[in-house]
């Protein structure tokens, strides 16, 4: 048979690999900064762009989409070409993908600190960037699928299944969660509100974990682990079973982020049971990874690459067991809103994504530069300090979460909250925050070792942009669908495979989203709930800009310990005008849903100037610029119009009078401040923010059901 000669594109792999390390260092340094800010609030140097609320989204986005994202693409471009025995179909698209993705990252790194954010976790980027993401992602998808179609290998290897599922699912998630209406060049409101928005958001965010941090990495594991260990994959049928089970079940589990909230009970229960059902399919991946090492365990001992991979896969197994446990309502009641969740996320991110990335890079760079790793010893040291870093990171947070949660829930014998002052529960766990930052520091120190080692390795070797290869062309042969061979049949048909995967992942989402959107009884209407006034709307946007939702929840759960502390628990009908919802996911500060009327305007004013004036020892950052920034009232009409388009009942032409109402309300607040000894201009940001806080949760006060 005629053998064809061709070459693999190694350049794009190299570019993505370098970007991985570059953004990895940056993303983690930002993470360390905010970890330190949690006990040294001064570390933002009084600069708005460096405050916790604005840097936190930058950290998560950088680590997920820049560090892990670039690794995914490096690994995919390397492995797809080789298991398909062909070059990527379009060098142009590969280049476009690389530079487009980096451009998006830079855009994120600029806009997020500036306060342009949608507030939706891991989807904070504003609409123009969302569109860029869609374009670049589709370019990648076309490049991927078309290359697979053109392959010289009869069947698609399991890694490719995971890549295909990744592409189709992320496309669906990104599009649905970005349905928003622009209200300015870098401002938009999601078309969904309240409960629906929350459900869409967590369906998205949960599956971003599933289909960005998990499935592509499983694909990488299926290529690089057997390569590095030089062992056959343990079980082909296990691959099939766990692949389909995983992608089908994962999509349902989003509501486990919303347990005990105003989400309807049935949706919460679906979140719980599908999370439990996910244990086995997730462990299927871990098993296939670990058992592939059968007969190679003696080599793990002195091969740092395998060590990294083994611990990564084990961390994957641990966090996919922990996750379902946290989805049980009784456990969730304790851990939710606490640092436990952060510990859990980092076990996955640092352990599974981080360590697997390092393992792959230590294997890939010497191979592409045709040399040996510069220092095995350094790699070993890196392995130990990053593992230690993970331990020091996660375990203190587990304790912090548990301690704080129990303090929130503790009643005295007389039935009164033992720790009514929220801050007391924060100060209690500061030592744990300090330990956590030590863990983070160790991990980052490790990545510097890695960079050094790999640069030295590359210097030693010689890189070849195009690697020569040869393979026989694929001969078309007729084959029929036979019983017992269905999957083999499907493995020859990438397009059908992609379509089937799409159908499989759509089911869960549709079953949960559509009824929540259409069935009225899911969100009982409350008469007294009215749209925000223009001033409150501006205040809400400032709340979003400053990222207050990264520290404050707005969802009082139906527990006695919470209704005693905050007031009546939150009802679904209260959020119908909340575009976007701002329930939050972490209580570094107290819940704010019943904040309205709790304190005087003066209290808030002084608290924003410097929280420690009102709450000695507070770790909330000061916001002095809110007192001096003037409110941008020129955008009022655009905001009112956008809100009306998505169903908020502002009257006809209200946009023309809105600013008058706004000034009246602002003047009233300024007058009240003046009466209490604080002269303040009514046109400042802080006035709007106070108006918003004083409105929060007051629509149903008094008419408890």
């Amino acid at each position, binding site marked *: 048979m005629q053998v064809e000669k061709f070459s693999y594109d190694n350049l794009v792999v190299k570019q993505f690999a370098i970007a991985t390390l570059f953004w990895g260092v940056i993303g983690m340094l930002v993470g360390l900064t905010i970890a330190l800010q949690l006990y040294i609030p001064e570390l933002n140097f009084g600069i708005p762009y460096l405050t916790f609320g604005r840097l936190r989204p930058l950290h998560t986005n950088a680590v997920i989409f820049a560090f892990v994202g670039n690794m995914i693409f490096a690994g995919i471009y390397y492995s797809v070409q080789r298991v398909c025995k062909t070059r990527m179909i379009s060098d142009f698209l590969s280049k476009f993908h690389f530079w487009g993705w980096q451009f998006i990252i830079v855009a994120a790194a600029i806009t997020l600190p500036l306060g342009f954010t949608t507030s939706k976790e891991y989807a904070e980027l504003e609409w123009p960037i969302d569109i860029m993401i869609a374009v670049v992602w589709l370019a990648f998808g076309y490049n991927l699928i078309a290359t697979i179609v053109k392959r010289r290998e009869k069947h698609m290897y399991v890694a490719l299944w995971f890549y295909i599922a990744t592409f189709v699912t992320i496309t669906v998630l990104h599009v649905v969660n970005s349905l928003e209406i622009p209200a300015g060049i870098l401002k938009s409101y999601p078309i969904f509100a309240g409960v629906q928005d929350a459900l869409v958001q967590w369906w998205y965010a949960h599956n971003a974990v599933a289909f960005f941090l998990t499935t592509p990495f499983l694909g990488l594991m299926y290529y690089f682990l057997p390569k590095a260990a030089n062992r056959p994959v343990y079980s082909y049928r296990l691959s099939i079973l766990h692949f389909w089970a995983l992608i089908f079940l994962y999509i349902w589990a989003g509501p486990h982020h919303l347990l005990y909230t105003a989400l309807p009970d049935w949706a919460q229960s679906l979140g719980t*049971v599908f999370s439990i059902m996910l244990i086995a399919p997730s*462990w299927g991946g871990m098993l296939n990874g670990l058992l592939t090492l059968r*007969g190679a365990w003696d080599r793990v001992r002195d091969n740092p690459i395998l060590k990294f991979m083994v611990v990564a896969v084990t961390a994957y197994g641990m966090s996919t067991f922990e996750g379902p446990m946290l989805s049980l309502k009784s456990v969730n009641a304790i851990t939710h809103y606490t640092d436990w969740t952060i510990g859990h996320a980092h076990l996955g991110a640092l352990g599974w994504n981080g360590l697997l990335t390092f393992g792959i890079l230590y294997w890939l760079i010497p191979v592409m530069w045709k040399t040996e790793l510069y220092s095995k010893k350094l790699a070993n040291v890196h392995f130990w300090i990053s593992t230690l870093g993970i331990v020091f990171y996660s375990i203190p947070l587990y304790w912090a979460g548990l301690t704080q949660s129990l303090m929130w829930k503790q009643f005295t014998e*007389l*039935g009164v909250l033992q720790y009514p002052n929220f801050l007391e529960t924060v100060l209690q766990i500061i030592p744990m925050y300090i330990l956590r930052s030590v863990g983070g520091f160790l991990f980052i120190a490790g990545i510097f070792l890695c960079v050094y080692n790999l640069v030295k390795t590359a210097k030693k070797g010689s890189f070849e942009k195009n690697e020569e290869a040869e393979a026989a062309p694929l001969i078309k042969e007729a084959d029929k669908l036979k019983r017992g061979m269905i999957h083999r049949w499907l493995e020859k048909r990438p397009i059908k495979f992609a379509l089937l995967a799409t159908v499989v992942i759509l089911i869960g989402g549709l079953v949960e989203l559509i009824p929540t959107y259409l069935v009225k009884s899911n969100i009982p209407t409350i008469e007294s709930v009215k749209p925000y006034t223009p001033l409150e709307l501006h205040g809400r946007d400032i709340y979003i800009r400053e990222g207050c939702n990264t520290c404050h929840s707005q969802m009082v759960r139906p527990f006695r310990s919470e209704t005693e502390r905050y007031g009546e628990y939150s009802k679904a009908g209260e959020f119908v005008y909340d575009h976007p919802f701002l329930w939050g996911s972490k209580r570094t500060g107290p819940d704010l849903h019943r904040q309205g009327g709790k304190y005087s305007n003066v209290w808030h004013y002084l608290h924003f100037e410097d929280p420690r004036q009102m709450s000695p020892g507070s770790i909330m950052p000061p916001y002095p610029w809110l007192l001096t920034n003037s409110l941008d009232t020129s955008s009022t009409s655009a905001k009112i119009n956008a809100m009306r388009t998505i169903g908020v009942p502002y009257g006809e032409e209200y946009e023309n009078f809105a600013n008058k109402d706004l000034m009246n309300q602002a003047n009233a607040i300024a007058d009240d401040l003046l009466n209490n000894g604080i002269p303040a201009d009514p046109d400042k940001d802080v006035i709007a923010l106070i108006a918003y806080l004083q409105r929060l949760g007051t629509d149903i006060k008094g008419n408890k059901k």
Partner: protein
Amino acid sequence: MKINKYFFYIATALLLFSFHTQLFAAGDDALDNVMKTMLIATIIVIGIVLWLAVIYSEKNDIDGQTFKAPLIKFRQWLTKSTPVEREQEILLSHDYDGIKELDNRIPPWFSALFYGTIIWGIIYLMVFHVFDSGSVQEKEYLAEVQQANFEKQILIKSGVFINEETVTASNDPAVLNEGKEIYTKNCLACHGQDGGGLVGPNLTDEFWIHGGGIKNIFKVIKYGVPQKGMISWQTQLDPNKMKAVGSYILTFQGTKPANGKQPEGEKWTESN
């Protein structure tokens, strides 16, 4: 290798030590239970890890090591996998860039876990949403509140839990001292160090807006006067503390501080 090990031991010791101090600082009853649960969970996790280590810690040179045979048999039984030496039998013909695949049986324990969780899921949904025998969150909440109210009633009846009807002023120096502490921490900002009044009214004269005497004072502390900015303290201070601070406030009577606010409200005379 050695250095790594010591490093690791020291770090673990440090870590454990820091939790130790953390843990006992909070010192609650509930913490005890959770501690136990955590301990059990930790033991289980360690067990699982050891078990996995045993199952996977197989070397190539198993031949001579007879004492390992039972473990290997056990593993075989659990995973039903084909031993490494015979893996040619289940090696698939494909070769993807040098990667080959075996076709081991799916481990029986894995299938049990998989189908077990599915069955569990179906039962869960049935219990909560078909037969309605589990309590969904609102029911759960109402039950919790009802229980708390019930316990409170008992406390009130037994006289431990005083309220605005049963409260009496105290002269006990210990109680007054406690009252002073509470006052300094919570009330001073609005009523002044000496009770002369700032944002809030003067507490030293015999004129009271909402009635004088310990019972009325207790009531105002407990429920607050929200429209005027006095917040309700009943979720933050237990009744004994409200009594203590109320009693302390009464010690201001007739002190006439230098910058006291003008009297407000009605003159109060103790009628009983």
